[in-house]
């Protein structure tokens, strides 16, 4: 499974999760087959409009199976779901490893679409 998580910087499993999906600085990519971690720049973050949709497009293009975050706007959510991507809700987790561990132990629930920031 290929898992994408918004991240504040290029780092390690100790790196913090970014609060924002569309405007996250980076995405961490975790391959659950081998626990390998890599990072990509979020090319959507500087869009003045529709950053959420553009970030979702990026996740789709990177062939994510799972995307997790604190909050998804309705459009990003719709795009991710349309691609058959599993969208999981984070809450108390602060670090990438916490999110990943909770994912592995099956503790994460499906996210709901929230209100969106269109611009």
């Amino acid at each position, binding site marked *: 499974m290929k898992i994408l998580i918004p991240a504040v910087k290029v780092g390690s499993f100790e790196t913090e999760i970014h609060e924002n999906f569309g405007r996250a600085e980076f995405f961490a990519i975790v391959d659950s087959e081998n626990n390998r971690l890599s990072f990509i720049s979020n090319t959507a973050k500087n869009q003045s409009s*529709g950053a959420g949709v553009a970030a979702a*497009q990026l996740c789709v293009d990177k062939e994510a199976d799972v995307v997790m975050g604190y909050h998804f706007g309705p459009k990003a959510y719709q795009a991710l779901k349309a691609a058959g991507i599993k969208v999981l809700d984070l809450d108390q987790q602060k670090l990438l490893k916490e999110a990943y561990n909770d994912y592995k132990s099956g503790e994460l629930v499906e996210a709901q679409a929230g209100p969106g920031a*269109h611009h």
Partner: protein
Amino acid sequence: MAQQLSISILSGKGGTGKTTLAVNLALSLTNVQLLDADVEEPNDYLFISPDIKNKEEESVRRLIPEIDAEKCTACRRCVDFCQYNALALILDNVLVFEEVCHSCGGCKIVCPENAIKEKARELGKLRHDKRKNLDFWEGELNTGEEKAVPVIEKLKTKADHNKNIIIDAPPGTSCPSIAAITDTDFTVIVTEATIFGLHDLKMVIEMLNEIKQPFAVVINKAESDSDFLIEDYCNSEGIEILMKIPFSRKIAELYSNALPFVKEIAGWENKFKALAAKIIEEAGKNERNYSN
């Protein structure tokens, strides 16, 4: 010859008394039309026509793309073209995110397969009520929509130039405010005599000067010991102060129940009539300035 005038009412931020001024001025005049162009939070109706939601209604529409899946080859040209990220290519299907679309028509132009048509989508409503002496229209932006300007422009097509027109503009200095005041003869800025009021007043004036719009100021919640904040600035800039509405608990209480104070407190109707006369005079001055 009585000249019919269009006046826009503006403020630097919300909550300074724009609605109060627009509504009370409208109710003091005859042969008048009030257009509530504060389409994100139209509140004039509470004072004028509380049951307007049951009155005559008209839809405001704009064009958004519709993808013909048969013709689409998933070439991605439209997705890459869209500056607003209103399109996404998901598993060889183009998804359209209608709220973010600016209706520019570009995706249709760039599509090499002729797979994009356009359809109309409602982004807001106009509502109408005809009261005695007062023709009232409001525009409202649907929740979730971001583009206020087309609603304001449609609302302004309802302007009846045989009447005096009052437009309650959205607060601030951004595009919707500019759209509402464009082509009005004169703008009245409502401000409060506080440091916030002064700061936001300056921002609005900067914008009005840029678009060369004539204007004057009304001070709301005026008080003898603080009006100097606004007065000193206006005097130094040569800006006319047309009226002061005093800081008054009575007026605030009436407002809290959406009662126009011009109908509740004696004497105010004449003051607003005098204000209208002053506005006509100021607007006239300005015309002369232009013709010279």
